[in-house]
């Protein structure tokens, strides 16, 4: 919600800026010569105002603010001016800089796992900062630490004080980082990609927390992110950076609703397609429902359960983790099904179990009418040509010692032995062209390609044999927003051109709706709801589906601030100790006693739809 302090585009400004950057530049000395990460950056932030700094990764956003804090890598140099209140930071002595850091400017860093000291407890790290900037006694410091943890909505704060970072979940760690940055009440908080590695519901919680903190403390906030939806509900002003320069700056409403720079326009457009609102594109079924029912079933999964043994007691006793619990689905040729849910919901396990890449505990999997579990190994392997998989890590899924051509040719070598070298090469080049790669890249190695190119190679490898089913395991989460969009478009095109069925797994509902006609929602390994995408996004039946959709960040500032206000708190339960009855009940706003007593049955209100909730009829 825009604050009253910054209603106009900003010349002059009512109050002296907390932070003023003038022609700031950052250069790195590398063996290949100097590399300019940022140049001519002029920005300012007023007290109590939130400035969003957005752009693709590599745009130099983080480097600018690392330079402001004096935290650049050893080979980095900053030029220009960065004034914090009265101090010129770029020329400050180390002692002066230390005083500003923490007490003047608090910084929340990108990846909470690697940004917290692993061998010190949360309590130790908090009290350390508190004692550094204020003369407190040990007991008083502990009190303050507890208060801080409560304020950042951390459950069981007293217990957290004694825990180590690796014992906390991603969302909890991020809250600890925020607490650490706020410890000495700084007038300015810089948050560098604070939501990137988190689940969408936790992202929403963190953003709502930051909004509340900014209001209470009248603290200036700089939010650095590549996710436009994240700034929409929070920022008063937005600056867009590209290749180290600020290309557009203005109020959030203006920049996000009516962007002027063509690059900004493209960013906003791409983001709009993913926010689940009315005008984002949806996938269309390949053929009419009646015809579709006559297509052969490519994949049928019935009551599939996968348990893992975890940990090892003194006598080999293991805890059982139910990664997947009685999941069923059916996919015909030409269909597309999306599987969504947060981390730990079993999506990847489902993908691998369906492809028989890991051992299942119970249930059945049928491929094209045949049960792979009963086939001899060689026959199973030959069936695999029809069911392919693309992976989350684009670079990791490619053998670093093979060229692109060798990688894409391997399925041909295994399944089409009769092909001679020339025809094989021709097939490879044709497939590469299909996925938008030039022939020149055929001789490259994976480490020489960008993330998007690597993912295209993975797709090429998967489709070179013309498979009947393509399973996509979170293939986009490691990519930039524009690249994500390109890959989604590619997959949609591939699907339209052939009869290939698509099983698309992602935590990003915005992307799923572009590709998939039906969506299955999982939580803690259990099915929650199955519905056509259009119906699910417009009128979700299950409370969890509603929570997921509400947490989707929207680029429209008005919609996003409303969404942030409605965010609920709550951590997902541990998969080792799932709640009794309906597993979602601990977070469900509609939970009743019956939800704790019985596991809800899977009901099918219509063909191809399903829901597991005791109260769905009353709630719709």
């Amino acid at each position, binding site marked *: 919600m825009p604050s009253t302090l910054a209603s106009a585009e900003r010349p002059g400004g009512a109050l002296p800026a907390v932070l003023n950057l003038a022609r700031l530049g950052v250069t790195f000395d590398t063996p290949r010569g100097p590399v300019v990460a940022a140049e001519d950056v002029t920005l300012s932030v007023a007290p109590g105002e939130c400035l969003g700094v957005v752009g693709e990764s590599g745009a130099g956003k983080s480097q600018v603010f690392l330079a402001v804090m004096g935290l650049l890598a050893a080979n980095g140099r900053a030029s220009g001016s960065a004034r914090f209140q009265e101090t010129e930071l770029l020329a400050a002595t180390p002692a002066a800089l230390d005083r500003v850091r923490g007490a003047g400017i608090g910084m929340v860093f990108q990846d909470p796992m690697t940004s917290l000291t692993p061998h010190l407890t949360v309590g130790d790290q908090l009290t350390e900062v508190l004692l550094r900037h204020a003369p407190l006694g040990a007991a008083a410091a502990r009190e303050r630490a507890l208060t801080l943890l409560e304020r950042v909505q951390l459950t069981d704060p007293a217990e957290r004080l004694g825990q180590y970072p690796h014992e906390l979940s991603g969302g909890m760690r991020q809250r600890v980082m925020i607490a650490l940055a706020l410890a000495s009440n700084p007038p300015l908080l810089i948050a560098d990609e604070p939501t990137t590695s988190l689940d969408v519901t936790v992202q929403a919680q963190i953003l709502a927390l930051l909004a509340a903190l900014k209001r209470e403390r009248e603290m200036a906030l700089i939010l650095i992110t590549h996710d436009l939806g994240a700034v929409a509900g929070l920022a008063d002003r937005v600056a867009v950076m590209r290749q180290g320069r600020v290309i557009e700056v203005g109020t959030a409403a203006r920049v996000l609703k009516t962007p002027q720079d063509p690059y900004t326009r493209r960013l906003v457009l791409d983001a709009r397609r993913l926010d689940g609102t009315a005008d984002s594109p949806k996938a269309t079924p390949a053929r009419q429902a009646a015809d579709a029912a006559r297509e052969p079933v490519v994949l049928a999964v019935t009551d599939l359960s996968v348990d893992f043994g975890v940990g090892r007691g003194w006598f080999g006793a293991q805890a059982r983790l139910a990664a997947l619990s009685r999941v069923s689905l059916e996919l015909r040729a030409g269909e597309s099904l999306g599987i969504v849910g947060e981390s730990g919901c079993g999506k990847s396990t489902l993908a691998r179990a369906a*492809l028989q*890449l890991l051992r299942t505990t119970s249930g059945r999997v049928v491929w094209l009418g045949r049960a792979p579990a009963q086939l001899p190994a*060689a026959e199973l*392997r*030959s*069936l*695999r*040509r029809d069911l*392919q*998989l693309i*992976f*989350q*890590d684009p670079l*990791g*899924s*490619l*053998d*670093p*010692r093979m060229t692109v051509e060798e990688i894409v040719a*391997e*399925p041909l070598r*295994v*399944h089409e032995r009769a092909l001679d070298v020339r025809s094989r090469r021709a097939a490879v080049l044709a497939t590469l062209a299909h996925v938008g790669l030039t022939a*020149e890249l055929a*001789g*490259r*190695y994976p*480490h*020489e390609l960008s993330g998007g190119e690597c993912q295209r190679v*993975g797709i090429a*490898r998967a489709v070179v044999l013309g498979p009947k089913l393509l399973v996509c395991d979170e293939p986009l989460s490691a990519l930039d927003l524009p690249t994500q969009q390109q890959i989604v478009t590619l997959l949609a095109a591939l699907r339209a051109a052939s009869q290939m069925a698509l099983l698309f797994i992602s935590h990003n509902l915005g992307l799923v709706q572009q590709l998939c006609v039906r969506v299955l929602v999982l939580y803690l390994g259990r099915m929650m709801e199955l519905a056509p995408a259009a119906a699910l996004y417009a009128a979700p039946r299950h409370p969890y589906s509603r929570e997921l959709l509400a947490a989707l960040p929207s680029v429209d500032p008005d919609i996003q601030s409303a969404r942030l206000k409605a965010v609920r708190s709550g951590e997902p339960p541990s998969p080792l100790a799932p709640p009794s009855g309906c597993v979602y009940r601990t977070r469900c706003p509609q939970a009743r006693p019956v939800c704790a007593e019985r596991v809800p049955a899977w009901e099918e209100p219509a063909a191809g739809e399903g829901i597991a909730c005791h109260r769905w009829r009353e709630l719709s």
Partner: protein
Amino acid sequence: MTERAAAARGRWSDAARRLKGNPLVVAALAVLAAVTVLAVAAPLLTPWGYDSLDWRHLAQPPARVAAHWFGTDRLGRDLFVRTLSGVRLSLLISVLASAVSLVIGVLWGAVAGFAGGRTDGWMMRFVDVLYSLPYLFVVIILTSLFPSNNIAVLLLALGAVGWLTTARIVRAQTLALKRREFIEAARASGVAPGAILLRHVVPNVLGPVVVYATLIVPQMILSESFLSFLGLGVQEPRASLGNLIYVGAQELESAPWMLLLPAAFLVALLLSLNLLGDGLRDAFDPRER
């Protein structure tokens, strides 16, 4: 785009390029080459054999006299030919022993890592037990078990123990590799396990092994010299850098050249091989890219 097109293709040429630019490595290679050439050519450069006795020149310091450029020892044997013969022997033994231990180590580690489960458990427990003893002790035990101390026994003892570290390294590499997604991708594509091992696992494991190989050779030289120094390795009258140094240490106060010259050669060999190995390791380090 063009910048990448112009960049070197693949890790090997990239690494070779970086090796050539490293002055320490180039110097090390030069020293190594010089010493090897000298050692091979030595018999042609001198009239003396390694155990021929020159009664007229006992314990003589290095001089031009009678072609005793490195001097003689107490028994009148020419130190030039003995030192270089020792270099030859050390190089031969250590290269062979390294080859043996590498082959055993790579096979053991790859099979254990790839098989996993109980096979892996038992195979590595065996390695752990042998590892818990200072390895030289095992070598000493082995050499004492055999009736005669000949070179073959020495080779066997050195090789039989040197493979432990290689096996560990290869197994760790294989385990890490097994979890990489491209191995899973190969399985999902329907590639048979044997083909996965040969086409995907082995090429990716070889890199570190090659680097480690260059570091094993100096370790073997060191171990062999160590044993010979103690009297358990190469025996008199054959010369090894180890037993030459032993004798030299005894004559320290009166005839320092008997120690200094073989020691200098040993140090030169070890230093250049270690520098070469370090250089190779840095050249292959992906983070330096």
